[in-house]
């Protein structure tokens, strides 16, 4: 049994053609069947059954009543442990519920489990997790593929039909890139649209919660559920949240679509450029106007990102010191030794690499050359977008420079791994919303994503365009 959309399942539930309990049973069975993909860090049938009783009591007008949702294990949850994919939080049980997951609970959704991720969301292949790799459900026999990252578990959970939607976080592409790799819809809203309260921090000025789903309409339903102001997050926006799903409109007549020349990179496969071309043609056919634009500082985005994000991370992760909660190394003889051993044993290689980079770029004597300069470049990149959006309604680019790659590829080459984010990072630095939808396949039949970028807090615009493009493959 496969459910195509949130509304389909909701109708079945409302018409009493399926019960909450049957939904739970269905998904428990599906998850058990796909255990070898290592999509979940935490999955407990009892915890799902406990929710059934609560959800049954809810009125039918709850937007997500009974909808199975997977939660990236970076969101703190009261009823399930939270690890951030790290040994350092291996047995951490939060006493609080993140803003985003609380909103999903309020709407009646059913959490099926906590999904795997790159440790503290640092990675692009869900291969830096302490709890092992996640395997892309679209892998062909014998060649396990990466699901992308860092929200690879959440993207894979939707692709493998283990839920109808999932939460992710996107710091430099961690929702959009895995969405592209797994052939699902992924949206990263404007920075500040969803509260970061209760999400273990990676890079505070970039971290943004978002969602994965099977289609654009579901993404819009989920997004309107998790968005909103939260006074506990000073960077949370006070904008009014539109009813994205009701405002869905595929009409692109007169819209101007920007095509940035800087996103044509050497070494990008023809297939990806073809997908991009197809999408441009389709939009034109639907009445949109194409405008060639320039985002002049794009080439600095990746190095800028890999200064700012590690800098913030080096400080954000200082709280994992073995003193208060989480892992603490045994047999230590001094406070300093406790820090050293706890953190060297508790963090994985990639996290340590980024803490070191971040510590370095903030050090006395290097701060101005790295961090301060990166902040200036970040402003230029954001200005590029702001200026460009005076001339176009949204921007269309590929999501990732490749399709899903084999699991053990790029493992030992961080630079190659970082290049995965080349198309997604600029929008993160600018804080603008982006959505990735599957749009065609490569020669091996693997999905390729296309990315739409919009103005600050204009999620509706890119959702509508994605909604229109999605129809090409229905």
């Amino acid at each position: 049994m496969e459910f195509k959309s949130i509304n389909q399942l909701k109708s079945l539930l409302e018409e009493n053609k399926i019960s909450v309990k049957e939904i739970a049973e269905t998904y428990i069975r599906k998850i058990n069947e796909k255990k070898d993909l290592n999509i979940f860090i935490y999955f407990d049938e009892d915890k799902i059954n406990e929710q059934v009783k609560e959800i049954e009591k809810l009125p039918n007008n709850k937007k997500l009543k009974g909808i199975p949702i997977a939660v990236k294990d970076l969101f703190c949850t009261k009823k399930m442990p939270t690890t951030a994919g790290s040994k350092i939080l291996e047995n951490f049980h939060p006493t609080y519920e993140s803003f985003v997951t609380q909103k999903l609970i309020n709407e009646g959704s059913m959490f099926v489990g906590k999904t795997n991720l790159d440790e503290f969301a640092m990675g692009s292949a869900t291969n830096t997790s302490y709890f092992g790799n996640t395997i892309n459900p679209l892998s062909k026999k014998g060649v396990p593929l990466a699901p992308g990252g860092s929200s690879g578990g959440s993207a894979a959970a939707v692709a493998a039909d283990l839920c109808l939607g999932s939460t992710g976080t996107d710091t430099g592409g961690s929702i959009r890139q895995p969405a592209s790799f797994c052939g699902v819809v992924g949206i990263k809203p404007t920075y500040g649209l969803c509260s970061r309260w209760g999400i273990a921090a990676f890079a505070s000025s970039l971290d943004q919660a978002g969602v994965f789903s099977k289609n654009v309409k579901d993404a819009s339903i989920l997004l309107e559920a998790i968005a909103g102001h939260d006074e506990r997050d000073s960077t949370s926006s006070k904008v009014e949240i539109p009813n994205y799903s009701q405002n869905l409109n595929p009409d692109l007549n007169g819209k101007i679509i920007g095509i940035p020349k800087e996103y044509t990179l050497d070494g990008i496969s023809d297939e990806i450029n073809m997908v991009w071309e197809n999408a441009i043609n389709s939009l034109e056919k639907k009445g949109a106007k194409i405008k060639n634009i320039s985002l002049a500082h794009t080439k600095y985005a990746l190095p800028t990102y890999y200064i700012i994000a590690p800098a913030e991370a080096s400080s954000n992760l200082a709280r994992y010191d073995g003193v208060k909660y989480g892992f603490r190394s045994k047999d230590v003889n001094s406070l300093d030794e406790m820090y050293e051993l706890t953190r060297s044993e508790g963090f994985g290689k990639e996290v340590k690499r980024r803490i070191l980079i971040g510590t370095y770029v903030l050090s006395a004597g290097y701060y101005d050359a790295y961090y301060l300069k990166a902040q200036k470049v970040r402003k230029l990149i954001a200005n590029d977008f702001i200026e460009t959006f005076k001339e176009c309604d949204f921007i269309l680019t590929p999501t990732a420079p490749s399709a899903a790659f084999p699991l053990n590829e790029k493992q030992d080459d961080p630079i190659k791994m970082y290049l995965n984010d080349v198309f997604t990072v600029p929008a993160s630095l600018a804080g603008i919303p982006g959505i990735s939808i599957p749009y065609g396949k490569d020669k091996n039949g693997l999905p390729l994503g296309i990315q739409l970028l919009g103005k600050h807090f204009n999620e509706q615009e890119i959702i509508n365009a994605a909604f229109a493009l999605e129809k090409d493959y229905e």
Partner: protein
Amino acid sequence: MSNLIKGNKHEWETVIGLEIHAQVKSNSKLFSNSSTAFGSRPNSQVSLVDAAMPGMLPVINKYCIEQAVKTGIGLNAKINNYSIFDRKNYFYADLPQGYQISQYKYPIVGEGKVSIDFKDGSSKDIRIVRLHLEQDAGKSLHDQNPTKTYVDLNRSGVALMEIVSEPDIRSADEAGLYISKIRSILMYLDTCDGNMQEGSLRADVNISVRKPGDDYGIRCEIKNLNSIKFIKQAINYEVRRQIEILETGGVIEQNTLLFNTSTGKTKPMRSKEEAHDYRYFPDPDLLPLEINQKDIDKMVNSIPELPDERKRKYVVVYNLSNYDASVLTADKSVSDYFDSVIKSDQSLKNSAKIVVNWITSELFSLLKENNIDIDNSPINPKYLGKLVKLIKENIISGKIAKDVLIEMFNSKQDPEIIIKNKGLKQVTDTSEIENIVDEVLKENKKMVEQYLSGKDKLLGFFVGQSMKKSKGKANPKILNEILKSKLSNKN
């Protein structure tokens, strides 16, 4: 007044700058809503934010911001419309986040100045560099267990104001006056409770010495001093130490020191290799702090009368000396008490000096003996005013007034009632005093003869005897006059 210190070879000038850490008076912490009450059970006032749980975020407490702005206004300082909270990164067991949220390049308050007053009536301005807000750390408890350290996070996240002075201070005494003045201003503003014992006010002292006219020497910083007495002791010790090193051809090593209150000596806190690189950067969890001028102007208008203003008023209106006025205004409670006394009766305006004396000598010693602060004085200021008036009007003598004051202190009664009940009213009726004098002279005929033969000193004896007979109630001035005239008549 010269502050130069004589060494074995030269005279030296001390250069001191102070960083005062004042706990903001606020019910809740700088970035969370936990209580700030002192002395609660360990870890009973700790929110998820204070404990730095994953995903927790700081939210600025507006009240603490207002308190800092008020303080800035009180320090005659520039309030910055735009300031930034930074992270100061370092590891310590009682620092849950692994960083302290502070202000680095863009503090909330900029340059200001305060003036300090000397005994000789002169005064001096000490310039303020800045005031910034920051969170306090928790407390590591090393004495609860032989092998373990416990951490109490009740203080973690409490708001502090760090007030940094220019190196304008030239002696331990000036440092003492400066910190008293800051404390006084904070207490007038009600932005800090000023309680140094509980650590609400503590200071780091930067000290160097130089030959007069030379450039600044290399400085050392003595950390975390929490009494004016210790600050002075530490400075005096450190100045001697530095002079000795320099005079024997040594060099001062720039260092962070701790002052041992039992040995009275300073010692290095950490070696150079351990010097921190705090990696300051703007806290991405917080937006820049913007305060609009209108709000600042509103606060300027709501600032209460400050010690300097009161001092000027005391000098001009009540004719007090600059120094008396500064002693009186140093403690807001004392000054408030004085104001209440004066306000209780129009005529007291001209007896301000007498009122000051009664407060600072007799009342203070009674309060001190009984360990009561002036806010809780059992003597109503109105009654103290009455007492002074009774003295001024010769109803009672100063000597009897002291006894009456003790009785007022014990019974909280109106001095008039005490005087009436105990019959302490001064005798001013000349005929009554004349009778007493006649009796005394009659009883001491020998003495009178001796007096008349030239022993003038015996006058005191007759005064004492007469006073005794009147049970201390005779008006001394009248008594003196009558005695003198009667004795001269006998001649």
